[in-house]
Structure formats: structure tokens, C-alpha cells
């Protein structure tokens, strides 16, 4: 029944909270509210704002271009999430299994956490450049004609690979922390029972790590939706012919290439709903599975 609430000056508490609240209201809540408002207007550069009700929404929801952008984003997120989680989980498991060199291995795979997306994009652009890239030759030697500047699916794969690469570090950081909390006794019991290494990962570790893995699924989904802008912008600019035009890039273009603020705001609001739903799902799921963590 002990308490940490040792001070009770209301004015002091208000003063301490004020800076965070002011910044939140002015730069986070208010612009969001504005976006919601603008989404009901026909608004653009040098145009008079005109109230159009839900017209922007109906336009978007019936636009086949926007549909494909949504589909593209979902597919992109799915590939990134699955790719990054499987790769990171396997690497983390191997690091967990070795007896020496753990720190060195760990550092060599978590560093991409610090990698600026723009740098990641440029390095991929250079490495896989269809005519000049270092690994273009070896890949083409395998019989693949690398021409992602004009081939949409290839462009999509390149952006996804860059996105996965950049996100590995962050995932390994959380996975290693989670794996290290698994009691040694469980590992030893599994070994005594002759459970093979791979089965131990799948049948013992993964179920225990469920809360962490769910957390990462959500974080990675949000990452794929929102933080991959620099990759798309520098690698493909949404092309070729819309093959990598995921929602966030589409929104940017709407606002800053076409200056359709009304439609762009509508797209913002839709994105907001997407994050909202993802966060809600994360909250519900971690709540439900939290007993695993003990």
C-alpha cells in the first residue's frame, strides 16, 4: 500500500507537465485536427477552400489507383514483417546458441538500428544498380535479368530488401533480450529429452517469446507503413509506373507534387486510422498473451 506520490503541489505538477502538453497540442493534436478538417474540403495551392463533405473519401475509396496503393502497402508490409522477423529470429537464435563471440556477433547484426534510411537506400541503389552495381554481375550470372528501373516487381523486391535490412538491428535487440529471459532449465530439459536444436527454437522458444514477437509484428508493420518513405523516395520514387507507390509515398506526392491538400489530408486520416487499428490490435494481443512473459 505504499505510494510514490510524495508531492501534492498542483501548480508544480501543472508546470512540469505544461511543456509536453503544449508541444503535443500545438504540433501533434492541432495539425491532426486540421488534417481531419481539410479532408472534408477541396483544398489546394492557390485555390479557395470549398467544403465537399465526404467527397474526398468517396473519390479515394472508389479510385482503383488508391486501391492498388493500399494493396501494395499491405503486401509490402507483410513481406517486410515476415522477412525481418524470420531473419532476425534465426540470427538471434544462433547467437544465443554459441558459447563465445556473442558480443561481436550481436554488434555486427544490430548496427543497422543506427542506419539512416537514406544511407540504406543509396547503398542499395549503388550495389544493385542495373548497369553499374557490384552485385548486379553475380546476380545476372544466375540467369536473372536485373532491370528494376523498369521492372516493377523487381523494384518492389529491392525496396523490400532494403527495408528488411534496415530493420534487422531493431528486431534482434528485442529478440535477444526476450530469449535471454528463457530459463536455462527449460533449455536443459529440452536437450536431455533429445529435442533437436531447430525444434527447440520452434516449439520451446517461440511460444515463450510470443509477446515480444507480437510486439515486433506491430512495430514492424508500422515501420513498413510509415518509416520507409526515404527508401522509396531515393530508390524508385514510387515507380516504375506505380509499382512501389506505397501509401506514405502516395500521400507525399499528393501533397507536395500535386498540391491537392484536401485529398492528401484524406489520405492522412486514412493512414491515421491504419495506425490506430494496428496499435489497438497490439494492445489487445499483448494483453491476452502477457501471461506467457510471467
Amino acid at each position, binding site marked *: 500500500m505504499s505510494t*510514490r506520490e510524495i508531492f501534492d503541489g498542483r501548480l508544480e505538477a501543472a508546470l512540469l507537465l505544461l511543456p*509536453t502538453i503544449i508541444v503535443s497540442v500545438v504540433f501533434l493534436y492541432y495539425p491532426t485536427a486540421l488534417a481531419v478538417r481539410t479532408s472534408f474540403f477541396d483544398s489546394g495551392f492557390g485555390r479557395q477552400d470549398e467544403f465537399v463533405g465526404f467527397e474526398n473519401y468517396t473519390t479515394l475509396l472508389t479510385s482503383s489507383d488508391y486501391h492498388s496503393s493500399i494493396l501494395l502497402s499491405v503486401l509490402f508490409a507483410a513481406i517486410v514483417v515476415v522477412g525481418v522477423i524470420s531473419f532476425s529470429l534465426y540470427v538471434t537464435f544462433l547467437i544465443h546458441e554459441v558459447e563465445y563471440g556473442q558480443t561481436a556477433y550481436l554488434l*555486427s547484426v544490430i548496427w543497422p538500428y*543506427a542506419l539512416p534510411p537514406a544511407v540504406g537506400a543509396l547503398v542499395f541503389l549503388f*550495389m544493385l544498380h542495373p548497369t553499374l552495381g557490384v552485385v548486379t554481375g553475380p546476380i545476372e550470372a544466375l540467369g536473372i535479368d536485373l532491370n528494376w528501373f523498369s521492372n516493377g516487381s523487381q523494384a518492389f523486391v529491392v525496396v523490400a530488401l532494403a527495408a528488411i535490412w534496415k530493420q534487422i538491428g531493431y528486431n534482434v535487440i528485442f529478440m535477444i533480450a526476450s530469449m535471454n529471459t528463457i530459463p536455462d532449465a527449460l533449455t536443459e530439459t529440452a536437450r*536431455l529429452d533429445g529435442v533437436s536444436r531447430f525444434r527447440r527454437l520452434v516449439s520451446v522458444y517461440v511460444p515463450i517469446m510470443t509477446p515480444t514477437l507480437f510486439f515486433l509484428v506491430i512495430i514492424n508493420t508500422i515501420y513498413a507503413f510509415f518509416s520507409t518513405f526515404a527508401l522509396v*523516395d531515393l530508390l524508385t520514387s514510387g515507380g516504375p509506373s506505380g509499382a512501389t507507390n506505397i501509401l506514405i509515398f502516395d500521400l507525399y506526392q499528393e501533397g507536395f507534387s500535386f498540391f491537392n*491538400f484536401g485529398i492528401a489530408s484524406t489520405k*492522412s486520416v486514412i493512414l491515421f486510422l491504419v495506425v490506430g487499428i494496428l496499435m489497438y490490435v497490439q494492445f489487445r494481443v499483448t494483453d491476452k498473451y502477457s501471461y506467457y512473459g510471467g
Partner: protein
Amino acid sequence: MDGVIQYTKRRIDAVIGRTPEQTDQGSNAGIHLQLWVLVFLVVFPIAVALIVSTKQQGIVTSLGDLAPGTYALENYREAIVDYNFGRFMWNSLVMSTVVVAGKLVISVCAAMAIVYYRVPYKDLVFLFILFTLLLPVPVRFIPLYQLINDFGWGNSLLAITVPYLASATAVFILRQHFLSIPTSIVETAKLDGVGPIQFMVYVLIPMSKGVLVGVSIIMFVYAWNQYLWPLVIINSEANQVAQVGLQLLQGDVQGGQLSWSLVMAGSMLTLIPPLVLMIIFRKPLLETFTIQQK
């Protein structure tokens, strides 16, 4: 029955030292080998970038060209001085430092109020702050762009720092950490009549050093890697940050005015600050991450 016999056999194997791994799964050497391959995949792109940044022209079209060149100093000097990259780096550094310092100060204050003050509605305030996690830059950058221009902050340091100051993540991590400080220590302070400022300066901050460092690194990496918002709001080269500066360099390459080695030198420069900080402070950083997940 067979199962029991199998089980017993495995037990016996275990007792006499024949571990299952020796028979059915890769040995330790195999694990190291796999790790080497995976680490190579993760490190290779950046190693290529590093090597290219030391070459004269940066035309590296085959794996055979991947020997370090001798133009490192020349390339980095040219990028920093002739192509203004020093200026971009400096802008990024100022921006990130201001954001980190500002976030830390106002987040410590907010978390202190939330944990140590007995005031009404503070849970609501905490929720209000947490809710900003749902409002990432992409959701609001169009109205924010208009708002910042209305303030007359366009193209300035204010534009790329102040909107970032409120941090739900920092407040959340600090709150979790404060809640882990034993109540009896807090109560001792209360019995001694320690005032709020003394408490913050002499008790709370010294007891939160690790977390404060960890949060600072997370914030620094976040601020340093910002791309979309500076791209939108900063339109003079003199005030641009390194992430967007890279794009300017790349544009010059596409236009045929610059060699790839300079772009890669710029990329390396952009990667260094967050990477170095992350490696130096990896311990508090990893500990802080584990708090975040709770």
C-alpha cells in the same frame, strides 16, 4: 510404449555424454559458419559503401573491383568542403542535439509529475501524451507544414526541432523506470522533507543515469535519421540536414556531375554519428529497450 523406450534411451545417452546435437544437428562450428554467412549479408552493403568511398571514381562494377582505394582523404575532404556536406552534418548535429536535450528535459519533468505527484486527472494526462504515438509525422505533415509557415519558422532550426520535443516514448520509458525505483527510497525522501527540485536533482536524475543515456541514444538516432519532415520544410541548402543532403549529392550523380565515391563518402559520414553513439553506449541502450517493451 515405444515412446517410453525412446525416452529412456535418450536419457541414457544424455547421462553418458552423447548429446543429441552431436548426432542429429550441426555442431558448434556449423553454427559459427552460419553466423558468419548471415553477418556477412548484413555487413556487406555497408562494407561496399566504405570501400567505394575510398576509390577515385567509384565505378565498381564487379566484385573484383572491391579493393580499398587510396582516395579516401581526398573524397571525404571534397564531400565535406566542396559539396557542403560539412554544413549538412553540422545542421543535423545541431538539430539532433537540441531535440535530444529538449526532449529529455521536458520528458523528465512530465514523467516526474506523473509518477510523484498526487494530483487529479494525471492518468488522463498520461493517456493524452501516450496517444500521440498514433500521430506520426506522415499523418500530419501537410497541416504542420502550413502551421510552421504561418509561425514564420519555415526553413529554420525551430521548424525541425520544436515539433519533435514532445515524446510519448521518452515519457513512457522514464515513467516505467521511475516506477521501478523502490518506494522506500522515495518515502525516505518524503520523511526527510526533501523538496521536489532537490529530489529531482539529487535523487531522481542520479538514479536514472543509465536510462537517461539510453533514452538519449534512442532520441538521437530518431532525430538524426529524420528525412521526410526536413525534406518538406527546409528548402535552402544552407539549412539542410545530412539525410536530405545525401539526396542532393545523389541528384548530382544522376546528372553526371559527381562520382559515386563522393556519395558513399557522404553516406559514411551520415552513418558515423548514430553508429558510434550506439556502439559506445550499447549497454544502457539495450537496457532501456527492454524497459520500453513492458
